[in-house]
C-alpha cells in the first residue's frame, strides 16, 4: 500500500478505528446477546478512548486490533461481574480475537458482522432507523457523522438509535443468520439499506461534505462482506456490488483538479479506477447466475455499458435505452424516467429527449430536483438554442444542489449567455 491510497506507512490502516469498532461490537454483542447491544457499544467506546489516552505516549501497539479487543473484552467482563452475571456467560466472551471464518463452517468475525448487518436491517425496524443503526453499529460512525451524512440533526439521529434499540429488545430480535427460507426476504432489506447508503454518498461525492462521500466506500465494504459469505452469496448481492463498484470506478474522474464537476462526456477515462471496473464486471457476471432480474441487475448493466465504452460516442446507447426501459418497468420512478430521456436523446437526438423530459416537470417529485432543468439546459444547448438553455440553467441554479454542481451549472450558464452562445 502507498500513502496515496489511504493506506498506512508506519501508521494505522485507514478507518481502522471505525471498522474495528463495528467488528468488536458485532463480536461482543453476538456473545452477550442483542439485548446487551448498548453494553457492547459502551465497552468498545471505552477501549478506543483508552487507546486515545495511551498510544500518544507509549506508541501504537504491534497489533492494534488485538489490543483494542482485549481492552474491550476486559471492560465487558468487569461490567458483567459487577452485574452478577454467571461465569458461564463470561466464558462465551472468549479469550482470543476470533479469526475470520476458515471456510469450514467455523464462526468468525465476518459471520458476526453479517449477523449484525442482518439485524440492523431487520424489517421490524423503521427504515430510517435501519440506516442509522447500520452506520452506527456496523460501520462505527459517530452520531454527529451520521447526522452530517444525512443532513439531519444529531439529536434526531440519537433518538432514532435509542428507539431502534428499544424495538430490538421489545421484538426480541436476535443476532443470527436466519434459516435459508427466511433469508431472501431479509437480504432484500439489507440491499435496500446498502443501496440507499451508496446513493447518498454518490450524490455528495466531490462536495464539501467528506463524511457523505465515505458512505460510498462503507456501502461497498458491507456489500463485500455480504457477498463473500456463503449463505448470502446470492446473485442480487453481486448485482448491487457490481453496480456500486462500477459507479465508484468513475469517481476519480468526476471532478477535475479544481474540484469542479465533469460530465461523463468530458471525463478523462484514463482516470477511472480500472481495478474497480474489473472487480465490478466480475460481480456482474456472478449476478447473472440467478433466475430473477432485480433493479440492481439492470442498473449494473447500464453502469457496465459506460464502464467498457472507450468514449461517450462509442457507448452502445440503443442498448442503454433498452435497459432504461427495463428499469422503468421494474422500478418506475421520475428519476429513472429522467435518465431514460437522456439516453433517448443520445439515440434519437436532443429534440426527442426534450419531448420526453418536459412532461416530467409536472411531477411533484421532481419539482425541486435541480437535475431536471439541468438536463433540459444541456439538451437545448446541444439543440443550438443557448438562450433557452440559459433559462433552464438559471432555473436549476435556483434549486438546492452541491457546490461542485453549482460551479458546473454557473460555468454552463456563462457559456450560454456569451454572444454567439455555447
Amino acid at each position, binding site marked *: 500500500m502507498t500513502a496515496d491510497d489511504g493506506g498506512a506507512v508506519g501508521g494505522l490502516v485507514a478507518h481502522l478505528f471505525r471498522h474495528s469498532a463495528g467488528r468488536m461490537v458485532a463480536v461482543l454483542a453476538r456473545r452477550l446477546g442483542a439485548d446487551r447491544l448498548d453494553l457492547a457499544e459502551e465497552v468498545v467506546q471505552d477501549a478506543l478512548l483508552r487507546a*486515545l489516552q495511551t498510544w500518544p505516549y*507509549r506508541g501504537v501497539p504491534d497489533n492494534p486490533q488485538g489490543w483494542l479487543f482485549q481492552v474491550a473484552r476486559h471492560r465487558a467482563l468487569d461490567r458483567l461481574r459487577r452485574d452478577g452475571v454467571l461465569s458461564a456467560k463470561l466464558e462465551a466472551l472468549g479469550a482470543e480475537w476470533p479469526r475470520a471464518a476458515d471456510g469450514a463452517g467455523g464462526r468468525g468475525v465476518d459471520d458476526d458482522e453479517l449477523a449484525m448487518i442482518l439485524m440492523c436491517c431487520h424489517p421490524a425496524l423503521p427504515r430510517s432507523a435501519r440506516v442509522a443503526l447500520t452506520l452506527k453499529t456496523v460501520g462505527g460512525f459517530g452520531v454527529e457523522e451520521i447526522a452530517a451524512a444525512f443532513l439531519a440533526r444529531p439529536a434526531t439521529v440519537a433518538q432514532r438509535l435509542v428507539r431502534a434499540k428499544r424495538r430490538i429488545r421489545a421484538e426480541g430480535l436476535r443476532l443470527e443468520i436466519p434459516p435459508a427460507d427466511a433469508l431472501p426476504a431479509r437480504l432484500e432489506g439489507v440491499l435496500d439499506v446498502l443501496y440507499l447508503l451508496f446513493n447518498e454518498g454518490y450524490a455528495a461525492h466531490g462536495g464539501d461534505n467528506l463524511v457523505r462521500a465515505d458512505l460510498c466506500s462503507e456501502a461497498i465494504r458491507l456489500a463485500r462482506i455480504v457477498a463473500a459469505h456463503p449463505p448470502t452469496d446470492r446473485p442480487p448481492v453481486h448485482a448491487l456490488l457490481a453496480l456500486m463498484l462500477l459507479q465508484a470506478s468513475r469517481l476519480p474522474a468526476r471532478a477535475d483538479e479544481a474540484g469542479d464537476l465533469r460530465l461523463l462526456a468530458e471525463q478523462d477515462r484514463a482516470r477511472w479506477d480500472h481495478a474497480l471496473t474489473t472487480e465490478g464486471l466480475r460481480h456482474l457476471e456472478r449476478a447473472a447466475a440467478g433466475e430473477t432480474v432485480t433493479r440492481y441487475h439492470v442498473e449494473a448493466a447500464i453502469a457496465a455499458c459506460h464502464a467498457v465504452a472507450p468514449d461517450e460516442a462509442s457507448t452502445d446507447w440503443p442498448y442503454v435505452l433498452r435497459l432504461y426501459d427495463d428499469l422503468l418497468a421494474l422500478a418506475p420512478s421520475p428519476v429513472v424516467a429522467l435518465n431514460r430521456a437522456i439516453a433517448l436523446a443520445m439515440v434519437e437526438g436532443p429534440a426527442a429527449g426534450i419531448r420526453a423530459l418536459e412532461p416530467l416537470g409536472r411531477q411533484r417529485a421532481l419539482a425541486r430536483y435541480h437535475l431536471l432543468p439541468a438536463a433540459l439546459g444541456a439538451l437545448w444547448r446541444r439543440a443550438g438554442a443557448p438562450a433557452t438553455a440559459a433559462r433552464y440553467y438559471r432555473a436549476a441554479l435556483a434549486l438546492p444542489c452541491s457546490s461542485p454542481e453549482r460551479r458546473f451549472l454557473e460555468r454552463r450558464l456563462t457559456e450560454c449567455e456569451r454572444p454567439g452562445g455555447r
Partner: protein
Amino acid sequence: MPKFLVLARGAGMDPRRSPEEMQKVIEKYRAWTEGIQRAGRLLHGEKLRSPEGRVVRRTGGEMMVTDGPYIESKEFLGGFWIIEAASYDEMLKLVSDSPHLEAGSLEVRQIEEMGPRG
C-alpha cells in the same frame, strides 16, 4: 545530550468522540512522536493512570493523604515523554508542532545529570 521531561497536561478528551475522530488524533501524535523517534531523540513515554493519584503532605507531624487526581487547575497530567535535545531552544522547536498544544499544554523540564549521584 541533555534529557528533558515533557509533561502533558490537558482537559481530557470528549468521550463521545467518534472512532474516526479518535484515530485522527492518534495519527497526529504518531506523526509527531515518530519524527522525534527517527531523529533518535525519543527515549521513553508513559501514560499516567487516571483518575487515580495521591497527594501526600505532612502537617504538624501527621501525614496527610489526599485522594484523586491532583487538580489545581482544570488541566490534569495525562502522561509524559523523555526526549533528548541539545538545548532548551532545540527542545522547544521539537515540541512546537506537537498536536498536544491544540487542546492542552506541555511543561518542559531539563533533567539534571551533572555530578555524582547521592
